[in-house]
């Protein structure tokens, strides 16, 4: 109970506090090191996990079985589709080949003309990629169309490792 400024007591308090604080810091650092040493958690891919509410059986549809004609029709359609796609793919590849051949020819001719222009042509075009373009829509845009107003809230979950 003395109110005189005493030196001994305040000093002790400081030391004890400092030591306690240091001990706390060390403990925290040890915990952090342990957490860092443990392997980082995998980020779950939400598309591959079916939520439990869909594994209920009450949601299964009851449809009539497919008729024989239907299965036949589907098989034949699949075959025609395969053929169509094969031809389309082949045509695309041939088109690409002619494209490349025409370009090679053009470059050869350019080389014969002037070496300088040829070198300028071969150089990589930096501004080309990334190339962004909006693709065509099924119907052209309506002139004077007023889209309905609304706010879009993004609820995707973001995971940090």
């Amino acid at each position, binding site marked *: 109970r003395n109110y005189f400024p005493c030196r001994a007591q305040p000093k002790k308090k400081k030391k004890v506090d400092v030591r306690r604080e240091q001990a706390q810091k060390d403990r925290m650092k040890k915990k952090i090191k342990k957490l860092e040493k443990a392997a980082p958690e995998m980020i779950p891919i939400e598309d591959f996990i079916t939520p439990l509410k869909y594994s209920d059986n009450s949601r299964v549809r009851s449809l009539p079985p497919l008729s024989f004609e239907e299965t036949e029709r589907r098989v034949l359609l699949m075959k025609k589709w395969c053929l169509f796609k094969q031809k389309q793919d082949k045509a695309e590849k041939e088109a690409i080949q002619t494209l490349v*051949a025409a*370009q090679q020819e053009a*470059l050869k*001719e350019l080389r014969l003309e002037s070496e300088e222009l040829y070198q300028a042509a071969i150089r990589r075009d930096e501004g080309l990629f990334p190339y962004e373009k909006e693709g065509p829509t099924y119907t052209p845009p309506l002139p004077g169309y007023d889209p309905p107003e609304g706010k879009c809230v993004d609820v995707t979950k973001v995971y940090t490792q």
Partner: protein
Amino acid sequence: IELEKSQYSDHEIRKLQEEEQLRKRKESGYDDQDEAPGKMVIMAQDLEDKWEQKLLQFKAAPRITDADKNNNRMSLNRKLDSNLMLLVKQKIGNQQLWLLPQVEWQPGETLRGTAERAMAMFLGDHIQAKVLGNAPYGIYKYKYPQAIRTEDTVGAKIFFFKAFLQRSDLSQAELKEDHLWVTKDELGDYLKSEYLKKVNRFLLD
């Protein structure tokens, strides 16, 4: 709607449940109707009807525009499902020919610079077009007729470059000469056979 490989969705379950409840109510003889009139104000079936109505009211723009019907080849609004190429009528020698826009190369310019100059000349300065790469896509060479040949120049080589138009509003551009926007099939109507053969090689539809 995909029926075979899918299960009932929330909306469909709600619809089924509400139908069940309606049926039960009718069978039990309209006893509980007064109790909960405020609860089921909106039913799933009503929602579906509302959506159907909205769809019927919406009318999309037609895919075949007026320019298609009139076969007006000068506008860009035709043939919205295929690519269009620009053709210009130019004077070569003493003939007026339909060609892809071409401009003579000035020494000191790269080929791509020439292509961009040609675009600026025919479509106006503020055109937003992206030239794809520095290298030419095709070449057409021809010999001058005997009258014009000098010692150095025997003929000419025309290098072709491809560019995509970013915006389709050409209102600012003044196209002095006759110009056309044509698809690949219609190119044959206007270009000469040799020229056409070489050009067709690098144009994809």
